[in-house]
């Protein structure tokens, strides 16, 4: 029922995809460039359907470490990048850039300067990779939609303290990226994200991120440790307020 309501909302608000975008090469061209997350229109999952075992892990974590003060106990303040889908459900002001090259989509994020590499229709890698914050991704075209599957996500430094809520090694994220128009007729990038974690979630969690076409800006240089480094160079003339 909720899904039907959401889908109705989305359909009414955003309209149908234009048929002109059907060809992957055309869609890739339209997706290339700089985008800003649309904080107002994007969805955020509010209730995570934790399984009883995961709720227990969460409860134990909160009992040991809580209550967590987000102004000082924050992964971002410690320069620990969170695992996907953090980078694609960003804070509104930080852009990312999409570049298509043969057989690949690459995403460059201003936050941490992170790079995400998505091979398209590539054969599976022949070697095991360690879990990473970006995970290991594979993409394929489904009509005018780029479908990306990501696994092997790092569990440590998971944004919210590990255990609240937990992340399992079985986590799999599916994204469906497409191009459409917003309610004012401007080009819009859409990402329908589903987080599937059968160890932690009773049901998959789905939500839609929307991004604003931003051709007038460039992805800037954001170095998370720069404030501490700058002070090192200057001989620590002041305290950095959020690094206490």
């Amino acid at each position, binding site marked *: 029922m909720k899904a039907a309501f959401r889908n109705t909302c989305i359909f009414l608000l955003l309209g149908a995809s234009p048929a002109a975008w059907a060809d992957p090469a055309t869609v890739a061209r339209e997706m290339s460039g700089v985008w800003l997350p649309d904080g107002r229109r994007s969805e955020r999952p509010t209730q995570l359907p934790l399984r009883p075992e995961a709720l227990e892990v969460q409860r134990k974590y909160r009992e040991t*470490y809580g209550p967590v003060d987000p102004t000082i*106990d924050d992964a971002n303040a410690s320069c620990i990048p969170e695992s996907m889908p953090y980078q694609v459900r960003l804070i509104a002001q930080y852009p990312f850039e999409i570049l298509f090259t043969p057989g690949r989509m690459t995403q460059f994020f201003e936050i941490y*300067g992170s790079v995400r590499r998505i091979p398209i229709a590539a054969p599976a890698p022949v070697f095991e990779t360690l879990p990473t914050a970006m995970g290991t991704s594979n993409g394929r075209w489904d009509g005018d939609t780029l479908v990306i599957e990501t696994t092997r996500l790092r569990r440590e*430094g998971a944004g919210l*303290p590990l255990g609240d809520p937990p992340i399992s090694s079985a986590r799999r994220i599916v994204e469906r990226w497409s191009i459409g128009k917003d309610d004012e007729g401007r080009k819009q990038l859409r990402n329908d994200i589903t987080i599937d974690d059968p160890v932690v979630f009773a049901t998959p969690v789905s939500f839609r991120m929307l991004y604003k076409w931003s051709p007038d800006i460039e992805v800037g240089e954001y170095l998370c440790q720069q404030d501490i*480094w700058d002070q090192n160079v200057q001989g620590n003339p002041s305290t950095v307020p959020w690094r206490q």
Partner: protein
Amino acid sequence: MKVAGVTGLSLLLAGVLQAAFAAAPAAPDFSGTWLPVEQLATAWPVPLPLTTAATQRLQKFHPDRDEPAGFCMPLGTPRNTLAGTGPMEVLQTSDRVYFVFQPNLLNAETRRIYLDGRKRAAVDDRIPTWLGSSRGHWEGQTLVAETTDLEPQAILNAQGLSHGGDLVVRERWQLSQDARRGQVLVNDMVLEDPASFTRPVSMRRVFVRAPDARLAEGQCSEGLWIDRLWRHRLAEHAAARRAAAGGARP
């Protein structure tokens, strides 16, 4: 009559355009993953042609205190291109060439060479960055690039050689063939900074194709170690809060 004239003109124009585009050879494709070839790199000149100011800076350098990588800062430009300590990935489209390095940091270093003719920022807007601001164009088969607005805190090598804010890095990138190694990407670089160097410094770096090389998402500190430190800090904060609340558990 008019239609025939317009058609004739269109055909003529089409012919001219076709000839023009046919005459220009396609730019080479540098895309892919490359590994630096140490044996083919040229060394820093000996002795280094340094000004007094640059010499003093070099003498004062203390790796324990002044090495930015120790603070998880990037190598920066041009050290990332000169250092030869890991793979380099090149991503190329019609209007830009990106050189990506990931030297055991969580932060990738992405050098963006724009080919669309954009100008350097106005004087009032210039902010030095570790990667710099780069503009380039094709001269036949050579990518010619100029990089400015480089942060002086980004040292040039592990010995602490440094530059000033007016450093200009000029590069010429081209493909070549090495008898033993096959296709290589050659970078001829010139560093111009009269406040630091008494004459321009030239160096060459050579990269060989390495399609199986991976730019790994490294970490400045191991993720587990960060997690342990962080949990330790969380536990301390939680204990302090409980003590403040009179020892009562939340």
